């Protein structure tokens, strides 16, 4: 028997929001989340009971993120040239601007591979199915992304951890 969709929102909503934020940044993440869950609730009654809900949602989110990116590209002013606005709530913990700057600088494939593997927990073969190519290629994309982030993102947790130890 299928669970009430509300439980799906509770259990996976925060994960999908992280993925959308990592892939699209603060402006468009919430639109992609909304499109993802609207599409998901529509299709939910037909989802096979044995389906992996996480992979299913990330697949939808992946497609919706592409739609949102295309829509953004059609805007008169490319979003890349806009100054980065803070999250809509204005709370600093909503979004770390430095992390987004570093993620944004990655090739889209690497950013997606990092988000789908490290935030959604998808295995590389599932990520390969989304991005095309082999599981090994997906693994390399994620590894390359992480490697670059370590050098470009000032909030590198190695530093943070050392600071914590020093306290």
């Amino acid at each position, binding site marked *: 028997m299928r669970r*009430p969709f509300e439980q799906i*929102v509770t259990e996976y909503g*925060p994960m999908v929001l992280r993925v959308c934020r990592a892939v699209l940044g603060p402006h468009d993440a919430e639109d992609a989340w*909304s499109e993802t869950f609207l599409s998901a609730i529509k299709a939910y009654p037909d989802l096979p009971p044995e389906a992996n809900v996480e992979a299913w949602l990330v697949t939808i989110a992946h497609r919706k993120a592409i739609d949102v990116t295309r829509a953004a590209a059609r805007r008169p002013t490319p979003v890349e040239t806009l100054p980065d606005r803070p999250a809509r709530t204005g709370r600093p913990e909503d979004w770390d601007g430095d992390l987004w700057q570093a993620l944004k600088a990655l090739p889209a494939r690497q950013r997606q591979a990092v988000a789908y593997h490290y935030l959604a927990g998808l295995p590389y073969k599932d990520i390969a199915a989304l991005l095309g190519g082999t599981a090994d290629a997906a693994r390399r994309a994620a590894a390359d992304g*992480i490697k670059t982030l370590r050098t470009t993102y000032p909030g*590198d*947790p190695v530093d943070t951890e050392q600071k914590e130890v020093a306290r």
Partner: protein
Amino acid sequence: MTSPSDPGRLLAALPAQDGPAMARLRERLADQAQREGILDIAYRTLETPVGDLLLAATDEGLVKVAFAVQDHDAVLSHLAGSISPRILNAPRRLDEASRQIDEYFAGRRTRFDLPLDWRLSKGFRRAVLTHLRDIGYGRTESYAQVALAAGSPRAVRAVGTACATNPLPVVVPCHRVVRSDGTAGQYAGGAEAKHFLLNLETAA
């Protein structure tokens, strides 16, 4: 323990939980689903003197009222199986029902005027429950009287079952059906809740 070089920690600045954002997104999802006609069941819980009531509605009307002792999660799972899993916590559809139930518990309302979706009750049970709406506020009938009124004088036990499985307690007043000896008898919300409702109605 995560190692300092754990790539997951590199992304720790992305909050794992963002309550305000999720609240905003849930509300937006409920509104969009409602607008597109795919929100098959909207629900909320309502605090009352007999505990939190679960209220659930389809497009047609109120379809389920459940007491806390009936286990709201179990009730929602059951609705997912019997009606549709497209279920969201979306209070707006229950605004009018909530208002009327609040008024009832405040002693300011003696009958409910709400669209009801009867699909969870069939056949004889439904005939019994339909009759219950004719038992006025503050009055009671015995199970035997209800059986007679429903056209099956010998079906006293079946009347008991119909009341026990009433999908819309409080609103469809199965609490007004009592034993022939005048004692309250069983109730889905517990004997205490039944006493409370009967007292509420005689006090008003």
